[in-house]
């Protein structure tokens, strides 16, 4: 007796639905490359989905870059500079690094 995997069946049904509205690409179109907007079918599902895919490709880290306000951008930038500075001070003040610098001087 064969028991089908229901998860696969659900996926098949969804794929059928997506193919019917021409949202899922055929195998030939799956090659990596620039995402082109389907211009012929304005306000079709295929056109809409190709736009979203295009956005996903253009801005992979969209959420982090958009949701943050310019102020928080600035704050993050400053904190990184401070961290780098403190780290460099720490390295230079350690015994081993002073020896290394001393040897460099020679």
């Amino acid at each position: 007796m064969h028991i089908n995997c229901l998860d696969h069946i659900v996926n098949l049904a969804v794929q059928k639905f997506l193919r019917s509205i021409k949202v899922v690409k055929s195998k030939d179109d799956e090659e990596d490359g620039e995402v082109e907007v389907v211009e012929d079918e304005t306000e079709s599902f295929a056109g809409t989905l190709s736009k979203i895919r295009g956005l996903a490709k253009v801005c992979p880290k969209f959420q982090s870059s958009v949701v943050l306000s310019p102020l928080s951008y600035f704050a993050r930038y400053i904190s990184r500079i401070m961290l780098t500075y403190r780290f460099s001070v720490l390295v230079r003040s350690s015994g081993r690094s002073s020896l290394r610098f001393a040897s460099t001087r020679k």
Partner: protein
Amino acid sequence: MRYDVPTRWNSAYFMLTRACYLRKPIDQYIHDQEDEAKQLKLWQYKLSKTEWEQVETLTTILLPFKLVSVKLQKTSRPRIDHVFWSYESLFNNIDDLQTMLARPRYRNNAWTKTLAVAVEQMRLKLSKYYQKTEHPFVYSDAVILEPSGKLLLFEQDSFEPHFKSKYSYDCRERYIDNYESTLQVPRLETTLKRKRAIDEDSEDNDDDYYRALAKAEKQRGIQNEYDLYIAGPTAPKKRDPLGWWKINAPSYPRLAMMFRDTFAVPATGAGVEREFSKSGRIVTPIRARLNHTTVTESMLVKSMLVRQGKILKDQEEDVDEFTINDEVEEEETVEVNYVHDLWKALINSNEGM
């Protein structure tokens, strides 16, 4: 933003949900772009109001499928009894959608015609596989042996009235053929006789009481454990069937064996595939010469630790990864709530019409 992958389940849903969630930031980002060349490039991806409506509609259509898929992928308890219920809920959702798309408000839209055809295609695909569940009896038996529901599913409107008696009769016959007569387990009657003997020692003689009980059971048509189980009250909601059967196995010893055999059948291959993926993560390029027994044992140890709630942290670097995963989960929760609201709004708007 997320990108959909055809081989990854629910990836289209996740991409659409994320896009819905980030609708305002996306529009703002495209609008506020200072670099003209970049803005020109981004402008072609700007979605109109109708297109956003399409995205929201697609998300609400895909949500029930995503929920069923995620529910079935869990391996914390057997899910074979969920199969019929899942089909039932998916078909109900599809019926709701088809009713909604047939309304004048949606019928005039050009894109809803495409949607109606696609939903019908999806229904046909599901029906094709649903017809295949008619032959394997494990689905119907699992539904009946789930103590909270029993025959409740077959009382739903989508089932014809004769299905309830048919499935129940077939299950009873299988129980009698395979468990009632063949298995040697401590019989209920023996226990009752022993109990009666103890009671007879006491001053009260309850012969009439036992006779009346036997007569009542006969009148109710109770001849075996199956009949007793069906006639009994249903278990409280959200109770794990394994726990219920563990407690009640002494009352239904043979039926409990049937339950164990039925619920051992997995509803999906997702759990097994996940286990195989674990082996892929153990045998990495830098550990390519592991013995097969080592791989097996490592997988078993990992599973045991997960069961005990002690998840392995391979390296200290993974801490960041765990934190990120937590954040992603939080985001997903927010998004799912958002889509739930959309779905409710859609249903309410239909009811209002």
